[in-house]
């Protein structure tokens, strides 16, 4: 039974470790993408007075949640466009004489999730022709991140509770084997704390022993992925968290969860036996 509950902790922690590694990496990537989200507020071409444009910039900067507002003239915009098109961009050079683009304010928010509301407010300002922030895509990205976090959290909590249940059953068996001893201890006036601590230690030990294999796997597995696979991925936004310190932090989390599962399991089962 001891082996079984250590095994249960081991399995739980392996799954938790994998979930955590995937989730935290996804989270990091999502955060990277989220950080890249910016609002392009295109200024109406008829809105030509320089003072008006400066006023508009200040108005935007005063909005709640706005981090930075950068002005980019239509010439800058064309340059960026030509640059981003590479060789094909040369065709656009013809437009340098008669630039069809707008002046643009590039707005960043402190919290990427504010993007949508801030964009909607900017759109109402006079002189703003159009607001562009990757409508649709951004909303879906945020939604996906929220789902992924919630689902991951629920799965991890479910696994942790299963392991706590198994540990508390193991400890219950130890306690029942020692129930006569505990009864005598209570009779001669031992305090609950005194009776509890050996089980407390036992639970913690079960949890910590159960975390050895998962930690080994995390360190070895993540090292392998970090050195062999991440080099082959070339998309700039898909970047794994570096082995050091991430794998060590993850191991520590696994160890703490393991000890927590063990202690909690033992506390749960001892509590019932101390009520006399």
């Amino acid at each position, binding site marked *: 039974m001891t082996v079984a509950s250590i095994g249960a902790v081991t399995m739980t922690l392996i799954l938790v470790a994998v979930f955590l590694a995937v989730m935290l990496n996804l989270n990091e990537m999502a955060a990277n993408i989220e950080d890249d989200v910016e609002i392009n507020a295109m200024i109406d071409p008829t809105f030509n007075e320089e003072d008006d444009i400066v006023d508009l910039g200040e108005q935007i900067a005063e909005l709640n949640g706005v981090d930075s507002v950068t002005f980019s003239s239509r010439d800058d915009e064309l340059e960026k466009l030509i640059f981003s098109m590479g060789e094909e961009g040369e065709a656009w050079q013809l437009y340098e004489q008669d630039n069809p683009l707008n002046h643009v304010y590039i707005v960043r928010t402190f919290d990427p999730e504010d993007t949508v509301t801030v964009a909607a407010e900017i759109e109402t300002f006079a002189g703003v022709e159009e607001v562009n922030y990757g409508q649709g895509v951004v909303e879906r990205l945020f939604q996906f991140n929220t789902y992924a976090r919630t689902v991951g959290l629920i799965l991890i909590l479910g696994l942790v509770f299963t392991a706590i249940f198994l540990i508390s059953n193991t400890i219950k068996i130890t306690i029942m084997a020692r129930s006569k*001893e505990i009864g*005598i201890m*209570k*009779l001669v*006036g031992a*305090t609950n704390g*005194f009776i509890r601590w050996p089980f407390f230690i036992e639970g913690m030990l079960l949890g910590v022993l159960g975390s050895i294999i998962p930690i080994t796997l995390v360190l070895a597995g993540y090292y392998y992925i970090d050195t062999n696979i991440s080099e082959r991925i070339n998309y700039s936004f898909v970047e794994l968290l570096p082995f050091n310190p991430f794998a060590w932090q993850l191991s520590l989390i696994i160890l703490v969860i393991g000890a927590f599962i063990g202690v909690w399991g033992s506390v749960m089962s001892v509590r019932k036996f101390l009520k*006399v």
Partner: protein
Amino acid sequence: MILMKDIYKTYANGVTALNGININIDQGEFVYIVGPSGAGKSTFIKMIYREVKPSSGSIIINNNDLSEMKERKVPFLRRDIGVIFQDFKLLPKLTVYENIAFALEVIEESPRNIRTRVMEVLELVGLKNKARFMPDELSGGEQQRVTIARAIVNNPKIVIADEPTGNLDPETSWGIMEVFEEINSRGTTVIMATHSKEIVNTIKRRVIAIEDGLIVRDEYRGDYGYEV
């Protein structure tokens, strides 16, 4: 000192065990609790060391009001009360010495005190030469002496025994009674539930008879009063 006032006890399953108990037992008394099986003797005894709480009424033990006592104080109450059972409740894997020392270890007594105290009580119960024996190497009477030694090793003010001679033959029982008298002569209150007519009628002490959860008789130097 034990003082009970209007004690009623109804268990969760609906059985009423005590039906208005009033009693006053002074420090140093020797009291027999007699009565038919199921009359409420065990409930009465368990209330003293607070294994059972009354449904209503108040109990005062050594100036502590048990109805107001917090859970975490209960262990300290029990350190002043030694309890002895018919079925001994010894730990089979520990020696006689260890079984008695166990009672002091779990209340975190210092090792030096433990040694002297255990040897003292072993002498008192007459088992000094059997300290290293295992419980199953002893006779029933000797095992009961070990449990008595364990109950008195931390100098309790009250010793409670629930049919301590119930599993013993008459001759052995007299030996056990001598130990109880010795303990009582040192100023310890002894409360003993028993079905032994011979003992109660021979060693005359206060007799409290409980029937249907009520005290029906309370006399000093009383008789057992029931036909066996």
